[in-house]
């Protein structure tokens, strides 16, 4: 009993236990979770109107809203959900119960909204705070001001053969660990170039798409070419658990960005722009821009960019001969700076009179977003800003791409992969323990080693859950190498401590020091070997390197010291 007390009061062991506890909290395991989790909610759909919200892209898997029952019928999995949806009739009320509340939805036919390459002008009214001077006293009051803004024209197709509640779902997650594309499957989007392009241009398209998706924050992606037997080229994109609308929006845009004054181009996306601000201090929503029109809310975003000197000079040349007009207290030039994305006017900016004829490199870009509520307008606006920034950074694609079809795809490693991996992991740990027991004939070594191995796996998964890292085949390879090194290093510790010839030359402390000298050397060497792999372009190498670095660091600084402490408490006096 004395030993047990010593073990649980040892600082290193307490640290290990605390870290394991934190890891378990981060993983948040609920192995028996039922229901379907909401991946996203379609704008203006039944669900959207009933107040169900799309989760934030950064939300952890376990924090997503889970549908438990509809009309009191339990929904345990995807099949339950879809078979229920298939039987619905239009204009009925259904009650959807989730883990966060109950919603009443009015069923509607499935619709599809297409954004056209045309724009229309809409009049919006917005509330503006003004200060008036009445009888020499400043009076603050709010007035309604109308303004005309340009928005893209949309058409809506209604399919009256099926009902769509407007919720995209997947089987409720059981932990916070995100599974990668090859373990979980994802969305598969097939794109066709509008015209035939050369192999070189195709390479540019592929790398541009990858970069766009990466900058947008979708990292677990496979992009490849595919062609049918008659020689038509397509591009195939696979993305883990992504929202397909976002992907379509992002990759089906050619991204030809032009800023014009009249008919003259001032600058284009790509090389003309040297810097795009994406941090909060110089990009975001204009707080004074909220407005309403026909029940829709609007708001504007803005962010700073830097132009190349040539583009700035061009702006100076084009503004030199413009006239100054005065509107209220502000002086503007008589032409606006019009922003076009794929030949569609996204915004028109007034040019301040002080910019006339000056080669200014730092300018502000803006645009807008709309939605049913103020909150929705804000998030739409932010989304549009992120898209525009992504496109400005990556420049345009050599060709326009059309979405041919989108499907969900099952994992490339098979549905049973994860179960099988856990099973063989378990067998591997058992067999390692057996060999270690045969070698040392001491449970005091074998049991702590087994526990350390399991602890290390839990901690790696905990870190992965915490940083939102996708576990895929590369990460699994990383975990295997970490477990392997863990066993290696514990054998080094055991041998240094237990061997008779070591006991003759060194005292206990020196022997621990000797063991950790070897372990630290191996750690630093592996660590630096992983750095270039982390920097290499492809996700495969990066996933492997990051998991390995996290794992070996956890091992060297947390689990191995604890293992050495346990062995010391159990064996020091027996030798």
């Amino acid at each position, binding site marked *: 009993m004395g030993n047990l007390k010593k073990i649980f009061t040892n600082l290193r062991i307490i640290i290990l236990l605390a870290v394991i506890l934190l890891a378990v909290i981060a993983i948040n395991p609920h192995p028996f979770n039922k229901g379907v989790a909401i991946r996203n909610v379609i704008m203006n759909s039944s669900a959207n109107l009933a107040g169900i919200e799309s989760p934030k892209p950064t939300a952890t898997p376990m924090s997503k809203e889970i549908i438990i029952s509809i009309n009191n019928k339990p929904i345990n999995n995807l*099949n339950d959900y*879809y078979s229920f*949806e298939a039987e619905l009739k239009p204009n009925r009320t259904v009650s959807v119960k989730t883990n966060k509340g109950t919603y009443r939805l009015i069923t509607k036919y499935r619709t599809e909204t297409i954004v056209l390459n045309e724009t229309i002008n809409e009049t919006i009214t917005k509330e503006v705070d003004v200060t008036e001077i009445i009888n020499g006293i400043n009076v603050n009051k709010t007035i309604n001001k109308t303004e005309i803004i340009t928005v893209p024209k949309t058409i809506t197709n209604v399919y009256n053969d099926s009902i769509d509640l407007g919720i995209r779902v997947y089987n409720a997650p059981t932990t916070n660990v995100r599974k990668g594309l090859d373990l979980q499957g994802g969305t598969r989007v097939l794109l066709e170039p509008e015209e035939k392009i050369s192999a070189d241009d195709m*390479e540019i398209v592929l790398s541009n798409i990858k970069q766009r998706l990466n900058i947008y924050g979708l990292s677990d992606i496979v992009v*490849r*070419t*595919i*062609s*049918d*037997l008659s020689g038509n080229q*397509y591009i195939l994109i696979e993305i883990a658990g992504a929202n397909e609308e976002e992907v379509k929006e992002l990759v089906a845009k050619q991204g030809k960005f032009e800023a014009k004054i009249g008919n003259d181009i001032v600058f284009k996306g790509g090389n003309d722009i040297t810097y795009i601000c994406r941090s909060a201090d110089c990009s975001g929503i204009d707080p004074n821009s909220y407005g309403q029109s026909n029940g829709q809310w609007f708001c504007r975003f803005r962010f700073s960019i830097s132009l190349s000197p040539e583009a700035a000079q061009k702006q100076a040349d084009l503004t030199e001969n413009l006239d100054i007009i005065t509107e209220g207290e502000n002086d503007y030039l008589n032409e606006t700076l019009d922003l076009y994305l794929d030949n569609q006017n996204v915004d028109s900016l007034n040019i301040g009179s002080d910019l006339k004829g000056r080669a200014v490199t730092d300018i502000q870009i803006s645009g807008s977003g709309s939605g049913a509520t103020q909150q929705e307008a804000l998030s739409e606006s932010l989304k549009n800003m992120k898209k525009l920034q992504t496109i400005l950074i990556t420049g345009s694609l050599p060709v326009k791409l059309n979405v041919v079809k*989108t*499907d*969900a*795809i*099952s994992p*490339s*490693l098979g549905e*049973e992969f994860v179960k099988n*991996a856990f*099973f*063989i*992991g378990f*067998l*591997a*740990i058992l*067999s*390692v323990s057996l060999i*270690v027991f045969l070698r040392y004939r001491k449970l005091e070594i074998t049991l702590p080693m087994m526990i350390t191995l399991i602890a290390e796996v839990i901690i790696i998964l905990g870190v992965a859950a915490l940083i939102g890292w996708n576990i895929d*085949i*590369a990460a699994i*390879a*990383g975990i*295997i190498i970490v477990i*392997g*090194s863990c*066993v*290696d290093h514990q054998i*080094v510790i055991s*041998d240094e401590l237990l061997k*008779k010839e070591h006991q003759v030359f060194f005292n206990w402390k020196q022997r621990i020091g*000797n063991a950790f*000298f*070897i372990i630290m*050397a*191996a750690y630093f*060497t*592996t660590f*630096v*070997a992983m*750095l*270039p*792999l982390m920097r*290499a*372009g*492809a996700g*495969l*190498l990066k996933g*492997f*390197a990051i998991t390995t670095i996290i794992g070996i660091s956890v091992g060297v600084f947390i689990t191995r010291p604890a293992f050495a402490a346990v062995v010391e408490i159990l064996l020091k006096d027996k030798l």
Partner: protein
Amino acid sequence: MSEENNSGGRFAKNKQISKLLEWYDKNYKKLLIIPIVLLILSIGVIFYKYAATGDFIDKDISLKGGITITIPSKDIDADSLKTYLLSEFPESDISVRTLTKLGEKTGVMISTSDIDSKELLNILKTKYGELDYNVEEMGSSLGKSFFKETFIAILFAFLFIAIVVFFYFRQPIPSLAIVLSAFSNMVVTLAIINLMGVKLSTAGVAAFLMLIGYSVDTNILLSTKVLKRKDGEVIDRIVNGMKTGLTMTLTTVTAIVVAYVFSQSAALSQIMLILIIGLLMDVLNTWVQNAGILRLYLERRTKNG
């Protein structure tokens, strides 16, 4: 395996093992020839492969691309289709995945890098009758520059390993010896995998990277024992380290063999196979090659100093 009784021989209680170790002690220079010849042969195998096929190893569908056949049918089960195809084309590289749209199954997608599309379609027709299908040619999942990037990244990894080991031991030759050992390990394993006709997948690429890690563990152990410890003669320290090192390799190999036997996933099997070969080769690379180089180096140093 305790070392309480030293009467058996100089290095171990067991006479045979002790004799073997004595032989190892006397003939380390001659033994050095084995890994050197193996490395040269392996480079030869890889170059031959490159000259013959234009690629240094056979690649599977994930690395090279291939054909995909999409069948828009709700009734075909992906798992049983895969079992059927593997029985018709054993040893082939086949993957079958399900496509769904809004929860409804829309079809199955068969991908392969090494079966002719006509042959595959014929086999499908004999089982399922006439089918709607789409045949497409699929490119690699990794960009064209992937192998170049990996190669450069590994070169830098070796360079960094050399620098860290140099800082630790302050001696250039042992640093280079560790890098050479890790390098030989990867090259020889690649050659053996090549001769076995394995088609490398993305998982296999990860497995090769794992070899760096394992190789570093045993080599650092050896270098520390030889260069930092002062107890006994060099050979005693090598043998002392070898006992620890072989235990390390034995536990890992056992775990990996178990995993290999019970794995139902082609990706995991390939990782395990590459690791088994790599770890067995690492025994040679560490305890014959690196140990031999270190002994030669220390002998030279004593002679000159």
